[in-house]
């Protein structure tokens, strides 16, 4: 749809009103905001229901079993149906059998891959020969920072002596990390606001410029 056509402008007008209604919460909570928020919940749920139906249920359940005769899809489908017993107080335990398959398989896949990603690769990236160059020195500092930060999370021994010093350096390193995170968070949050401002401005220009 051409956004400057009559229908385009009407829909964009609705979007602009929704934007302003939600911003009204900044002044204080009000019925208009509450109404739009709850409408959004309904729209989101409706959209997701249909998305799941077309892209997931149709693809993986309806077509394979009823149109292509891939009968083995009946087993996981029946297990999936068992999950609905969660809604029953009396037979809620039946859903655990399906959940057990889901959790067992996903946990079994997760364990070796997480060891590889979050531990082995990270340790591999940390331990390197330190040469007397700028990069090497920076690497040494990073190595020290990682070691000290890890020692901050070690609670099996009181943080005194060498562990006290290293955990102190660790918390300083962590604070720098969190500070950098805050700096970029401001950028991220502002970007979201800017997009809404640009949307309202463009709509205003089109409206005044005779979009309708």
């Amino acid at each position, binding site marked *: 749809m051409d956004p400057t056509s009559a229908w385009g402008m009407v829909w964009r007008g609705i979007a602009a009103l929704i934007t302003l209604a939600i911003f009204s919460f900044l002044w204080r909570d009000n019925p208009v905001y509450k109404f739009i928020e709850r409408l959004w919940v309904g729209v989101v749920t409706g959209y997701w229901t249909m998305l799941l139906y077309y*892209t997931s249920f149709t693809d993986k359940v309806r077509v394979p079993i009823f149109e292509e005769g891939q009968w083995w899809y009946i087993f996981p489908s029946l297990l999936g149906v068992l999950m609905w017993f969660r809604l029953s107080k009396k037979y809620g335990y039946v859903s655990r059998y399906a959940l057990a398959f889901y959790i067992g398989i996903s946990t079994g896949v997760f364990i070796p891959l997480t060891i590889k*990603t979050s531990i082995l*690769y990270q340790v591999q*990236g940390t331990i390197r020969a330190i040469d007397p160059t700028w990069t090497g020195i920076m690497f040494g500092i990073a190595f020290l920072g990682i070691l000290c930060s890890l020692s901050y999370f070690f609670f099996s021994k009181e943080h005194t002596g060498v562990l006290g010093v290293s955990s102190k350096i660790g918390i300083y390193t962590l604070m720098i990390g969190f500070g950098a995170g805050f700096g970029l968070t*401001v950028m991220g949050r502002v970007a979201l*606001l*800017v997009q809404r401002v640009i949307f309202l*401005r463009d709509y205003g220009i089109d409206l005044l410029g005779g979009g309708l």
Partner: protein
Amino acid sequence: MAWYDRLLAVDRRWIYLILAVAVVIPAIWTMHIPVSLSSEVENVFERVSGIQDGKIMFLAIDYDPSTMAELSPMAEAILRQVFRQNGRVVLSSLSQFGPAMTDEIMTRIAGEMGKVSGEDYVFLGYKPYPAITILAMGTDFRVPFPTDYYGDRVDDHPMMAGVHNFDDVEFVLSLAGGNAADMWIVYGNAKYGVPLALGVTGVMATDYYPYLQSGQLFGLLPGIKGAAEYEQLNESPGDGLRGIPYQTTSHAVVLVFIVLTNIAFFAKRSAQRKHGMQAGLS
């Protein structure tokens, strides 16, 4: 009430108003703010530059409307670049509100550049549970996606002949506004060794530098600045570069807030100390 007390007790709505004014200024006055380039963005740009003449990349659009402001400019710039180079792209969307947005961006840009679904791009669509979907795609894209987003069989697309899994694409670039980024690292890169780059929101960006250093990621587009840098490298100004002046004015306001509040805080503390000393003397 002392000046510092008044400053420290300002109503939050004044803060909101000042920020709102700061964000509106660039909407009225056009400004040009230069953007410095970083190596992690340049690495992504170079790899995407290699997607030429029929080569295929995998673009995972894993964000939803709440983070589209930062990530959509990246998606647009990358798609335009790939199509300009006659490259091809396989897309998926593992965020529940991503598919319709992906469809909108994809069809709009493909329409502008005369590209055809099935020949120049294939949009696989959405499946819930990103971890499991990525694992399944590693064996064959057809396992989680027997049909594409529009309900057409993936095998019916000429572009997908001989394209089965991550081994058949040059690399994966995930534009993620949530934990899909971690899923791609754990289940895409660690399991299948697929070369991976991420485009993430500003909030998430600092978390991915360890993966960059360890070589698990070959590049990173951090937030709106990453998008702006990419557009600058690509010489195609879009919403990323357009957003930088707004960032400048609002960052200036936040910085002034921090300075002001700290001046007031220290003034109050020093007054309290002085008062305490005088009280102690008397």
